[in-house]
């Protein structure tokens, strides 16, 4: 029993890492008031960039940096359209998703089916891995990017809620006019948050193509970007909640593999999406009286306009 629990937890965490990086990116971007539905596009571009660099150079650090850069640049495009040009953020984000899927398909053709000669090896954290149960479930034989993702989540929480910059970011997401009137640079802050969010999403993609399933196939993110977006909502835009949400949805994906002998796999495939809808509905009911979405989410800011 303990064995099953530990392995389920550990595998959920591994799969959840893809979702975690994407969800953290969405949390950061949306806390500043910019909706980014381009998560799927940024993740797949990150996945391709990460795989391509890893395949040619064999340097994992370089691969992750490339994925982050590509994710940030893609998000920068979304930022330009939605912050500077003040276009509809939802449409721009959707366009980014389609652009990312299409572009990665074209550019990725020559990487299809290639193997990776070096791997980003799993590691165990010395000391922490000997804690009973928890050590085995969390700190044993996981990818460095899994540990890093949890660390980044905690760090993001500290930044958002415990620092000066955090107040700025959250205030801009709630009421950019109030921040602007106090001389806080709304445009710059939103750009930085959106692009850093894109970088996190890109790393999530790279984890998929470099570590979790070391390969490149067209459309390999398979909708995970959308799940990441909904985890951000489900977690009420709290990075710590996003860690839990990623673990939960990672668990649902893992359950697919476990249950496929007894339940029709087509039904199981639907499960994550069904549970996204269910989780969002439950979350919405819980918060009906006190909405938690940043009040200015999705609204372009124009000085002097009510």
């Amino acid at each position, binding site marked *: 029993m303990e064995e099953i629990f530990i392995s389920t937890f550990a595998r959920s965490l591994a799969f959840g890492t893809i979702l975690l990086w994407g969800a953290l990116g969405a949390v950061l971007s949306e806390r500043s008031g910019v909706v980014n539905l381009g998560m799927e596009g940024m993740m797949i571009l990150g996945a391709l960039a990460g795989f391509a660099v890893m395949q040619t150079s064999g340097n994992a650090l370089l691969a992750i940096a490339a994925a982050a850069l590509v994710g940030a640049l893609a998000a920068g495009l979304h930022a330009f359209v939605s912050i500077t040009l003040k276009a509809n953020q939802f449409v721009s984000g959707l366009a980014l998703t389609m652009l990312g899927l299409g572009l990665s398909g074209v550019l990725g053709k020559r990487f299809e089916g290639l193997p990776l000669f070096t791997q980003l090896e799993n590691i165990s954290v010395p000391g922490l891995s000997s804690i009973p149960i928890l050590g085995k479930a969390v700190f044993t034989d996981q990818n460095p990017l899994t540990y890093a993702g949890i660390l980044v989540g905690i760090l993001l929480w500290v930044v958002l*809620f*415990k*620092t*000066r*910059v*955090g*107040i*700025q970011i*959250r*205030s801009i997401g*709630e*009421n950019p*006019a*109030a*921040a*602007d*009137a*106090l*001389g*806080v640079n709304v445009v710059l802050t939103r750009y930085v948050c959106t692009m850093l969010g894109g970088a996190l999403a890109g790393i999530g993609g790279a984890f998929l193509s470099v570590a979790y399933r070391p390969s490149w196939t067209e459309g390999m993110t398979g909708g995970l970007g959308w799940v990441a977006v909904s985890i951000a909502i489900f977690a009420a835009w709290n990075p710590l909640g996003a860690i839990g949400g990623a673990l939960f949805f990672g668990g649902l994906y893992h359950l697919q593999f476990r249950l496929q002998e007894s339940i029709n796999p087509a039904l199981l495939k639907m499960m994550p999406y069904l549970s996204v809808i269910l989780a969002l509905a439950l979350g919405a009911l819980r918060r*009906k*009286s006190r909405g938690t979405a940043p*009040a200015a989410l999705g609204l372009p800011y124009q*000085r*002097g306009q009510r």
Partner: protein
Amino acid sequence: MIAAPLVEMLGITKSFPGVVANDSVNLELRAGEVLALLGENGAGKSSLMNVLYGLYRPDAGLIKVAGREVSIRSPLAAIGLGIGFVAQHPLLVRRHTVAENIALGMRGSFWNPVPKVRSKIFELSKKYGLEVNPDAPVWSLSAGEQQRVDILKALARGAKVLILDEPTSVLTPQEAEELFKVLRRMKLEGEGVILITHKLDEVMAVADRITVLRKGKVVGSLETSQTNPTDLAALMIGRQLEPVRASAVQVGASVLRLENVSALSDRGVPAIENISLEVCAGEVLGVAGVAGNGQRELIEVITGLRGVTAGLVMLEQTNLTNVNARVAADAGVAHIPEDRLQMGVVGNLSVAENLALRGFETPVFSNGQFLEPAAFESFAQKAVAEYEIATPNTQTPVRLLSGGNIQKVIFARELSTNPKLIVAAHPTYGLDAGATAQMQRLLLERAAAGAAVLLVSEDLDEVLALSTRVAVLFDGRLMGVVKRDAATREGIGLLMAGRELVTV
């Protein structure tokens, strides 16, 4: 030696496509004084102050702060020069605490500056008499408290000059008096205050000097002690304006009757509780109270936009409890809504179409399934002439009209069917003096002709001038109904703040 004025604005000109908002305006603010910037809507007060706060760049002119010529390119630059701005609607993050709002954008430490800011808040609160709890979330504060937070925000940044934009429009008379006390404390500390307003009694009460703007130009700069409200009004409007006041009316039979009505707000909490009141033909019942004390829900219950949880809404012999808006309108309820653009008109439809919104299904405007454009047009022509609606033509989208003209379109439409009951919510809010007088006169004319009028307004002077009786709402409860002759500003103000009526 005489110290240089805190602020001098010389020859400021600012134009927008089609309008000159400020035409070589001069303005001077000295240390230790309250300067009133008086003018109608669109006179250019706000754009002048936006120039001073770095939100607009002037086309011409220069600004001196403490005798030194400066260029103010952003709010940050203005804050750096010791200029603070308190907007009409507080610019606060509602979900954050008071301290977080004040800490927002402060330089210095990497970590959350809230602990440091808290002690600063206590210090400033004591110095200026601005009491507020630093740890309270802003959404839980009253309008007056939110305004204090906005003022504290400016003071915590070392403001020597404070600009207040229509600060009393959201306050009870008592809260306004509290604010004036704070302003007097600031004067003693040698700070300067610019008070943007169009309320004359306020100017007389608190200002040392007055600069009057009309159509973008300064038409007078005077000492308060050398002038009086009548002269100021003439200067501000450019002509004499008769004050509108209700004359004695013949009150007829009961038209609207509410019996023990309770209803919930949008958030599902009780918004009005156990309200019983009556409005008779020929009568104007004024409802006073700070916004958010159940006025909106009361109006919506009567106009068929909100269901009740208990009680009865009767229009003469018709039961209007829990009916929809169409039934209420057909029964004879006219509704002048609070939010003109959102609820009063369809912005992208033409003036003519908006005027016909109430009756477009009736035989005059439609013939079976098809609309009759000619009927729309002739009705619109008549309304435009009768209500003096300033519009290029009847096909102009209504959103392009000014606030006053949009309100005239709404009045023309709502009054066209000779309603038995007129429910008017903040009918003159944000209108200039001319349009205000016209709307007020229309309501009184209709009352004199036998309609019952329920007037909800935050402007206590308006309520007292027009009403036969005044009802006060606080926290969803009816605090009392007072006959006009017995109503005083102070008495109503106490009721608005939730004190029970003490009968002597």
